[in-house]
């Protein structure tokens, strides 16, 4: 499983990087979402993989559990990146409505010359 998880993280990261290098806001946002998927799984995997041992305590059995801490961290990370995604989506929309195009580069105007 480790190989699958690692390669999946790698692929998602790569796709995310490729997309954040595009020139329109939309693919960049999708790329950021991919990166956040990738990093979430990365955090999760950094607690090592254990199949079939969820961190729900079982009073009746002597069992081992998977790392609950990384899961909690991922949860926090998911929520935060959700908030961030919502904001950037909205800002991208606002920027599109203000300017009439959804380019992410500002090369048409090299210097923020106006007040």
């Amino acid at each position, binding site marked *: 499983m480790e190989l699958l998880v690692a390669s999946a993280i790698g692929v998602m990261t790569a796709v995310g990087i490729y997309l954040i290098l595009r020139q329109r806001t939309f693919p960049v946002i999708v790329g950021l979402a991919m990166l956040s998927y990738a990093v979430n799984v990365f955090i999760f995997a950094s607690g090592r993989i254990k199949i079939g041992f969820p961190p729900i305590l079982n009073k009746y059995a002597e069992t081992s559990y998977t790392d609950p801490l990384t899961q909690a961290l991922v949860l926090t990370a998911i929520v935060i990146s959700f908030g961030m995604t919502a904001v950037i989506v909205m800002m991208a929309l606002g920027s*599109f409505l*203000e*300017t*009439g*195009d*959804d380019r992410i580069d500002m090369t048409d105007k090299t210097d923020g010359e*106006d*007040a």
Partner: protein
Amino acid sequence: MIAEILISALLVMAGIFGLVGSFGLLKLPDLMTRLHAPTKATTVGVGGVLIASMAYFLIFEGKLSWHELLITLFLLLTAPITANFIAKAHIHREMTARDLPVTGTERDWATLMPSDEPVQPVMNRVDEPPRQVSDH
């Protein structure tokens, strides 16, 4: 033993129907026919698995789990809506009134009814001189 056979049978049947559902998606010729396939995956397929699960937990673990029933109900409730929406999307995208039977009433099919707004080209092609806004 009988329970085991029963559950196994349910599972096998469920598996087959689930697979048929997905296979239909591949095999059938167009969207409208393909749309029929997943109903099987939904109903007998997942339904079978869920009932097998209930039975399994009741018989082998000694606890009756009702969650599966809820899931089944939910899937049954939503499947028609899903199908309806995808069909409407298909009709909207691919079909005209001529491709469909007439309603026989004064109005056309709901999806094909004229919408209230005119259609314009994409916004960023509108050549509107950007107005400078300043806070000052």
